[in-house]
Structures are given as structure tokens and as C-alpha cells.
């Protein structure tokens, strides 16, 4: 087994571009579709009133209250031009006690900005109204200290009495694309069995004292290790460099990824069992793989797919189980016990597919 591992590693060492390109592809796809490096959205603000700079400064400090948006004072002409050219989705024109949004279309981002700005302006309007009624003292400080320890407080709790977690689609897409690329890597590595069979290297191994179990283990283990390498590199990069929310229980996430990798390797082995040549595998496998995340709903919010047939088909592939388990770990602090069912499903798929796949390969050899 060691010699098979060594020779597969030597081949990749000679031409590492294949693996590097796939890792880069995985990172790029996530950045492209999941919104890039996690940073607050910048929104341009400007005023065209007489005391424009005063108004801009006042609302800038009031609008920049959390990390979701960063409001920046911009020249009115430039702000309009940026929106017109599509460089920005929205800009905010400020007035003394009111605002106008400058946008070209009803994008979701415009609604988010409007919600935030509306909230700030309403709050300020309320404070101003109270100040006018009272007519004296620092009303703002009073309200803030009162709200800090209000007699009635609204607290949202989850079923397990914990805080309701915020679902982050970027994290889901990160895993969806990482697993998509990993499926390609592992498939092409498993296809080395067919490559070596066609070239006659497999026969040389059969005639050697090496056991068949060791031969298969060598190929499977190498596919596993190289795929896990890609997954780990991508996840660590997104967690520590790009500040993506990958959760605190990274070991459990890696464990789920390992079960997924084994399970998918088995499916690749099953497909290998159906084909005669590496070319047939290259034709079938890449056509099939992009469908799995679609069926499994990996690119969509949980609960989007409701069709029972699609849900059943999704359950036949390990991706749906892996995504469910990982999202539970990251967003709902699920432990090993909670994801055990998903792990067992993946293991079952893996064992069955591997068994049938190797059986088919062996039958073909006779």
C-alpha cells in the first residue's frame, strides 16, 4: 500500500499544477459567489442642503452604529455617478430630518440599507420629539441609560434556550464550493485505478506479492489524503485569513468532511466499476458531479427544496448529509452526538458504494 501511495504522490509532485488549480478554483468560486472577503458594505452618503457638511457629519456618526454597513461621506456628483455606473447599489441623500435613497433598481442590498437608515432616522425623530416636549436637559443620554436597563426587555431565544443563531449563507456556499471541487479531485484520483488498468500497471501489481486489498487501499487512501488536504487548506484560509464564520468546533467540521470524502470516494469507485476506460469516466463523472450540489440544495437556503422526490434523491448522496451536519455544528453548536446520524448515513453510502464498485471492477477483470 505504501508503494502505491508513494507513486501517486510522486506523480502529483511532478505536476502539482492540477491540485493547485483546483484549490485556487475552490477559493475563487467561494469568493465569487459568496461575496468575497467578509467586510462591511460601504454606502455613500451626501447632502445638498445649505449646511451640507454639518448634516453629513451628524448623520455619519449616527448611521455608523454597527459593523454591517460603513457610511462614507462622498461628493454628491460622484455618489450619483457611482450608482449610475453600477459601482454602488445605493447612496443616501441626507436632509436635516429626512433622507432619500439614490438607486437604479430594487436590489436586496437597497432594502437592507433602507431598513437600517429608516431605523436610525425614526429613532432620531423620536428623540427630537421628546426633547421638544421636555425642552431641557440631555434627553439622548437619559434615554440611552434608561434603555440600557429598561423594565421590559425583549430577548429572543432558540429552542434550547440559547440565542437564536444567525444563518450565514456565505458559510454554506464556502462549504458547497469546497465540496464541489473536492468531488472533482477525488474522482480524478480514483480514476487512476482505471488508468493503471488500461496501461497494464495494474497487472504488474497483480502479479507481484502485493495483496489486492493493499492495492485498493493505496488508491483510496491517496484520494482521501489529497482531497482532505484541499479541504483543510481552503477552510483554514477562509477561517483565519478571510474571517469566514466556520465555527469553533473545527475538528468536528473536519471529521464530517472526512466522512464526506470517504463516502464520495466510494461513489467515484462505483462509477469506476461501470466504465471500461478512463475516458469514459472523464465523460460521465464531470457531468454527474455538478448536479449533486444542486439536488442537495447546497447553493440554496435550507428548506428551499421541498419536493419529496428530490429530497429522497439528495439523501442518496453524501453531500446533503455533510452540509446538514456542518451547518448544524457551525450555526447551532451541534456536537458529535447530534451529527451522528448524518455521519452514519455517509458511512453507509460509502460502504455500500465501495463494495458494489470494487465488485464490479473485479468482475470486469475476469
Amino acid at each position: 500500500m505504501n508503494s502505491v501511495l508513494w507513486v501517486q504522490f510522486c506523480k502529483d509532485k511532478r505536476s502539482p499544477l492540477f491540485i493547485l488549480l483546483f484549490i485556487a478554483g475552490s477559493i475563487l468560486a467561494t469568493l465569487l459567489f459568496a461575496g468575497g472577503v467578509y467586510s462591511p458594505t460601504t454606502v455613500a452618503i451626501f447632502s445638498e442642503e445649505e449646511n451640507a457638511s454639518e448634516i453629513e457629519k451628524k448623520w455619519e456618526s449616527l448611521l455608523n452604529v454597527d459593523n454591517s454597513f460603513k457610511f462614507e461621506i462622498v461628493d454628491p456628483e460622484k455618489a450619483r455617478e457611482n450608482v449610475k455606473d453600477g459601482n454602488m447599489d445605493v447612496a443616501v441623500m441626507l436632509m436635516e430630518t429626512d433622507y432619500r435613497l439614490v438607486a437604479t433598481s430594487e436590489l436586496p442590498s437597497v432594502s437592507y440599507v433602507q431598513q437600517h437608515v429608516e431605523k436610525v432616522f425614526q429613532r432620531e425623530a423620536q428623540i427630537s420629539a421628546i426633547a421638544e416636549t421636555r425642552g431641557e436637559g440631555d434627553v439622548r443620554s437619559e434615554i440611552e441609560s434608561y434603555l440600557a436597563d429598561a423594565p421590559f426587555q425583549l430577548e429572543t431565544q432558540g429552542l434550547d434556550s440559547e440565542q437564536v443563531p444567525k444563518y450565514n449563507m456565505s458559510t454554506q456556499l464556502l462549504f458547497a464550493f469546497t465540496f464541489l471541487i473536492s468531488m472533482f479531485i477525488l474522482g480524478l484520483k480514483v480514476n487512476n485505478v482505471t488508468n493503471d488498468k488500461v496501461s497494464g500497471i495494474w497487472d504488474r501489481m497483480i502479479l507481484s506479492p502485493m495483496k489486492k486489498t493493499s492495492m485498493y487501499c493505496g488508491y483510496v487512501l491517496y484520494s482521501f489524503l489529497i482531497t482532505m488536504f484541499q479541504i483543510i487548506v481552503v477552510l483554514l484560509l477562509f477561517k483565519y485569513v478571510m474571517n469566514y464564520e466556520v465555527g469553533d468546533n473545527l475538528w468536528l467540521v473536519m471529521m464530517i468532511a472526512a466522512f464526506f470524502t470517504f463516502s464520495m470516494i466510494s461513489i467515484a469507485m462505483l462509477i469506476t466499476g461501470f466504465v471500461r476506460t478512463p475516458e469514459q469516466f472523464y465523460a460521465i463523472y464531470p457531468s454527474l458531479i455538478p448536479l449533486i450540489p444542486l439536488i442537495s440544495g447546497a447553493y440554496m437556503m435550507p428548506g428551499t427544496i421541498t419536493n419529496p422526490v428530490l429530497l429522497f434523491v439528495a439523501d442518496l448522496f453524501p453531500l446533503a448529509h455533510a452540509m446538514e451536519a456542518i451547518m448544524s455544528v457551525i450555526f447551532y453548536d451541534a456536537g458529535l452526538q447530534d451529527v451522528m446520524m448524518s455521519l452514519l448515513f455517509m458511512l453507509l453510502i460509502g460502504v455500500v458504494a465501495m463494495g458494489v464498485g470494487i465488485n464490479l471492477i473485479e468482475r470486469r477483470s475476469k
Partner: protein
Amino acid sequence: MLETINLSKSFKGKKVVQDVNLYLNNGESVGLLGPNGAGKSTTISMISTLIKPTSGEIKLNGVNTIDKPGEIRRISGVVPQELALYQELSAYENLKFFGAIYKMTGKELEKGIQQALEFVGLEARQKDLVKTYSGGMKRRLNIAAALLHQPKILILDEPTVGIDPQSRNHILETVRMLNQKDGTTILYTSHYMEEVEQLCDRLYIMDHGKIIAAGTKAELLSILSTEDTIKVELNKLDETFVEQVKTIEGVRKVEASHLQLKIIATKGSNLISKLVHLAEQHHLQLINFHTETPSLEDVFLQLTGRTLRN
């Protein structure tokens, strides 16, 4: 040492090898000759235990290797027809891998690699990637990979396919040295008559999955001892002329190609005068005319009615 008894193999009901009986004595060099599709590769795949026969037996020193494949695998090396090498690795790395699967390690492996490379004359290019090698060099490395564990029986399946004459001579010389100096038993399959004639002590001729003749070269040639092979070159070839030649008394086979006729006839058929007479009748001019010593090619033609490379 090694013998097959009524060895047969069928694929999807079609018999590709039928009742093959052959034997190899220790230190002998035996050729298995036949055209493409004759069943040579299937036969040696069964002998080397890569595929199981449908029926029959293979015995190595009396032990049935179908039940105990390890017996023959341990002492045999197989050079497959295809280039079973990792093209993206160097010759050294390839041999290191093929040695490692035979559980060779450390100094033993290193020594084996260098010996095998030296034997096939590739020691100077051992660090180069196989994909940069010529066809002949790849074929030599293909042989080296089968020599690493110093097998007692070397089975070569058409090891010279598609290479230049110089590389072919190098390979034939290597095989001869293995047989004569190291005493390795050789089973060599080919459809090149001259290679088998040059290398092998004994021959088996296969066609349509059956052994159709066996023996030493002299024994096989004796099949034609009662016949003459005559080659006639004409200024043009006339089909009626060819058909009439076939009807001449004593003519057994006629093969026409371009402007030449190859005629196998019973010795003393007085063919020459009859041919001259017939050519005159057809207004044909005889340009060249000679009687040949029969070759194994002629034996094959006699036995099967076609040439080896048909």
C-alpha cells in the same frame, strides 16, 4: 518445468484458446508464434495467472498454478505488450515502485534497479522522465521492470512492437543474454518470424486459438522438406495466369503480390518448364526466377494458407 494441459479460454461463449498443450524446460527459450488475434496473449495471460482458464491445467514443477498462482508469480517476470510504465515519472522512480511492490527495499532494491538499468542500457538516462524516451527506450524499460526481482521464467508478449530495428536488435540481444548467460527460461511471443527464429530453441505456432505446429526450427522446416518454394517475377500479373498456375500438377499453394508469385510445389514437379510455357501462352515476360530455401514463414503459409502478418 512448466506445462499447460488442454488449456482453453472462452469469452462470452467464443473460444479464443482451444486445448493448448505446451511445455517449457528449465533454461529453454521457447517461441509462441502466430498472427494477431491467434490467442498468444490470452495464452500467456493464463500462464502468468492474470486470467483464469475456462478449462485445462497449468503445472509448474507438478504444482497446479491455477489453484496456487503464487507459485509461478514468485519466479516469473512478465513483459506486457503495452507500456506498463508511469510516463510522468523517471525510469529510476518507475523501477523503484516496481521493485517495492516485490517487497524489495534498501540496498537490495537499489542494486536491483541499477542491474536492470544496466542490462537494458538505460543507466545513463535513469533520471529522465519516461515520457521523454524514444519508443525503443520505453520498451527496454518495460523489460527492465520485469527483471527487478530476477525471475527464473521471463514471459515476453511481443516486446518489440512498433520500434526501430536498432532498438529491436538491442532487445533481442538482451533476451538472448538473459537466456544464455543467466539461464533464464524464456517464453517469447511474436508475430515476427525472424525474431523467433533468431532467439528460440523451440517454437509453437498458433492460429485461431490452437497450436497448429510445434518443434525445433529444423523439425518445423521438415514439414516442407518435400516441397520447393519458387519465386517468379513477371512484367505484369494476369489473374488467369495465376489461376492456371494453381492447376499445374504438383503446385500446392500460390500467393501473388505486386508482380511476384510465390509458389510452393512438390519437389521434382518440373515446374520451371511448365511455367515458361504458360507465360508464353499469356504473352507474359519472366523477369526473375529462383528457388528458395523454405523458411518458417513458408511453413506458416503451408499450415494456414495465409502469411503471418495477414
